[in-house]
């Protein structure tokens, strides 16, 4: 995992304003050398203004509000029992202590004492039970609903103790509980108001414009390093960039194109940090159909594509190459980029071995939004060199959902997969790509039933290797997570896993 990267070096392509850029190098190396000095000197009552492209549709993470709802609320307003930290670990938050029974089917969780909701109600075990049941309820649209389906009962022997019973072992339970906001069971509406236990209370919301949070003075944990946080929403990336340039916001949570960064990289007033997202650009085959049912064909295609050139085309100097579906922030990551390296010669040999010495042609269903069309053109041009003809078929996001995700009516497609810890998709033969390797299915299933985390990591690492060796799909690259801020702001998360954006450590001077 890389830490913050200060992009202070000269950009070879644009040698304008060399003098300004040179002084920038000096300025940034100074700030990189003494980061602590900058952090101590901050205003504890500052207002931090955050610019984002992801306005939540409502304020409830079980009501299809979109990724923006996690950005604002996770750990800021609502807290979970356990949280996924910015570097991909799971740590207890509202759970002060927990124990697991011998058979792994009973989790006894002790709650932190003296925790109150913003409304003043104390946190009790009943609130926790209510919160979990809310997520697994039939009307819930939570993406982790199925992962929590192993919960068979929730008991509350006293106000500070929650006992969760499982129908089968689930080593990921603490992780899966990181998706569950602990809400007040007396709350009446979740879509328009919020009553959490987090360091901030919801101050106000203006639809189409923004959400403001203010420090909750009775917070049970460490007080935030700022007083107020305002999320402003933009629909246009250029407008958002301009807002930062004109000091209307302090931070952009996620920059989606490397080219706008030129505005900030050559400017000493701004800091560009690169973290690792969990968003993977995937060339997914329908592994059920000829010729993609043959792993040799899939490997040949993977080897025929110069992924580092592609990554450079899309993201310039940013982003990471991955040799499988697992990003470095997942515990079962291993570097598998060497399994099918760029090598058109062995690609041709593999194609010949698989019975396609003269190549073949296939349809590549390509979603009509960036970066897929340009990625498709690159894939077409690379595969032409080994004799494979690609017909690019542009489709809408809706068509993708019905034709590919639901009907499995496709040969190959491009898609970005955003989730953290989503290797489990390869353990489901009914998933849209139809990868069906009994060994992988068994490993993924038994990993969940592991007694220890070590055992789970070992099994999933093996599964990870197997899918890479089978070239179940072609994993083209991992998106970078780029945050740009004014240089008087520090302490924000760099990876933004699962679209979270913890604001309580942000310091502004």
């Amino acid at each position, binding site marked *: 995992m890389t830490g913050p990267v200060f992009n202070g070096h000269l950009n070879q*392509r644009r040698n304008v304003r060399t003098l300004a850029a040179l002084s920038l190098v000096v300025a940034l190396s100074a700030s990189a050398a003494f980061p602590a000095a900058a952090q101590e000197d901050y205003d504890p009552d500052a207002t931090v203004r955050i610019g984002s492209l992801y306005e939540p549709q409502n304020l409830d993470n079980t009501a299809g509000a979109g990724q923006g709802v996690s950005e604002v609320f996770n750990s800021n307003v609502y807290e979970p029992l356990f949280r996924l930290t910015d570097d991909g670990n799971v740590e207890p938050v509202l759970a002060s202590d927990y124990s697991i029974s011998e058979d792994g089917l009973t989790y006894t969780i002790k709650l932190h004492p003296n925790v109150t909701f913003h409304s003043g109600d104390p946190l009790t075990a009943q609130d926790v039970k209510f919160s979990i049941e809310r997520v697994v309820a039939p009307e819930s649209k939570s993406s982790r609903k199925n992962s929590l389906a192993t919960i068979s009962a929730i008991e509350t022997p006293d106000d500070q103790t929650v006992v969760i019973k499982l129908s089968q072992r689930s080593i990921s339970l603490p992780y899966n509980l990181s998706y569950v906001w602990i809400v007040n069971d007396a709350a009446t509406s979740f879509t328009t108001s919020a009553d959490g236990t987090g360091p901030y209370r919801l101050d106000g919301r203006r639809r189409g414009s923004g959400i403001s949070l203010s420090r909750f003075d009775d917070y049970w944990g460490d007080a935030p390093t700022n007083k107020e946080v305002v999320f402003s929403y933009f629909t246009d990336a250029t407008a958002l960039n301009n807002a930062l340039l004109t000091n209307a916001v302090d931070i952009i949570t996620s920059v989606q194109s490397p*080219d706008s960064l*030129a505005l900030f990289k050559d400017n000493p007033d701004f800091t560009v940090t690169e973290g690792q997202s969990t968003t993977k650009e995937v060339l997914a085959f329908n592994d059920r159909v000829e010729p993609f049912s043959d792993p040799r064909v899939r490997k040949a295609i993977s080897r025929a594509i110069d992924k580092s050139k592609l990554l450079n085309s899309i993201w310039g100097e940013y982003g990471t190459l991955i040799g499988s579906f697992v990003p470095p922030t997942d515990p079962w990551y291993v570097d598998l980029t060497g399994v099918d390296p760029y090598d058109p010669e062995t690609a041709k040999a593999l194609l010949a071995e698989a019975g396609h010495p003269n190549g073949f042609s296939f349809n590549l269903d*390509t979603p009509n939004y*960036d970066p897929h069309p340009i990625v498709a*053109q*690159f894939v077409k041009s*690379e595969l032409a060199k080994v004799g494979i003809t690609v017909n*690019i078929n542009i*489709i809408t996001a809706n068509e993708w959902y019905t034709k590919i995700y639901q009907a499995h009516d496709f040969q190959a497609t491009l898609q970005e997969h955003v989730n953290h810890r989503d290797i489990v998709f390869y353990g489901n033969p009914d998933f849209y790509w139809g990868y069906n390797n009994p060994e992988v299915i068994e490993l993924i299933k038994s990993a969940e039933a592991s007694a220890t985390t070590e055992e789970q990591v070992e099994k999933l690492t093996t599964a990870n290797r197997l899918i890479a060796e089978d070239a179940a799909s072609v994993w083209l690259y991992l998106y970078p997570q780029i945050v740009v801020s004014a240089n008087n702001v520090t302490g924000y998360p760099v990876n933004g896993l699962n679209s979270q954006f913890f604001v309580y450590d942000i310091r502004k001077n």
Partner: protein
Amino acid sequence: MTLPEQAIPARRGLRFSPTLTAGLILVGLHIAIALLTLFWTPYDPASTAGGRLEPPSWSHWAGTDRLGRDFFTQIMIGSRIALVVGAGAVAIGAAIGVTIGLLAAFATRFLDDALAATLDILIAFPTLLLAMLVVAASDSASLWTAILALGIAMSAIVARLTRILAKRVLRNDYIAASRTAGTSWPGVVAMHVLPNIWPTLAVSFALQFGLAIIAEASLSYLGLGTPPPNASWGRLLQEAQGTVYTAPIGAIAPGIALVTLVIGINLIADGLRDVADPV
């Protein structure tokens, strides 16, 4: 009143006004480039050998795109696509539009009213919206669906114009005379109607040609036109959108190509109108 003397020669043939000449030069240039791309382009359009977003240089006149493809090559091929789309859409629009327009002109009062009302409704839809509907109804976007969509969308305008022009001609006494002399209706169309209405129709076709090119660029910009890697100017503009600050040439070059071709066509339309209607 007698017509001024100098207006009369114009009726005898094409008078190459400066407008028409300028238009013909611009469009001729695009046609020449389009024909050239059939045999030769500076680079293989699919070759990704260049660097990412290189600025214009002697080796890459308009720089390179994100994938390292030569941008000038793509713009040259864009000329071909623009002209094919424009010509194809006008041909389809003319075939459908003139036929319906003539039918309406000859039809009974009731049918004529019905057709006229239908055409008015169709014209009320913006061309682009209508074209998007046609593309959406087809299985997948392609060059041909784009042409067909624009042709269909355009046909309503052509049909209405044809109907009005034809009705005006049909009111003349010599039509009745011609009929009395035994000329069939198709004969009347061929001998009297079409020769009288074509100059105005030609101007309209030229204007529609330009509009079709812009409409195709818009469709491609929205991802509904010619699918990649065909180098439609609209798609080039769309791809350049994210890099407009760092590599403005990507937006400027297809923009210039589009503007020169459409202005050229409009100048031709203007010049043709002067020829058709010299007063």
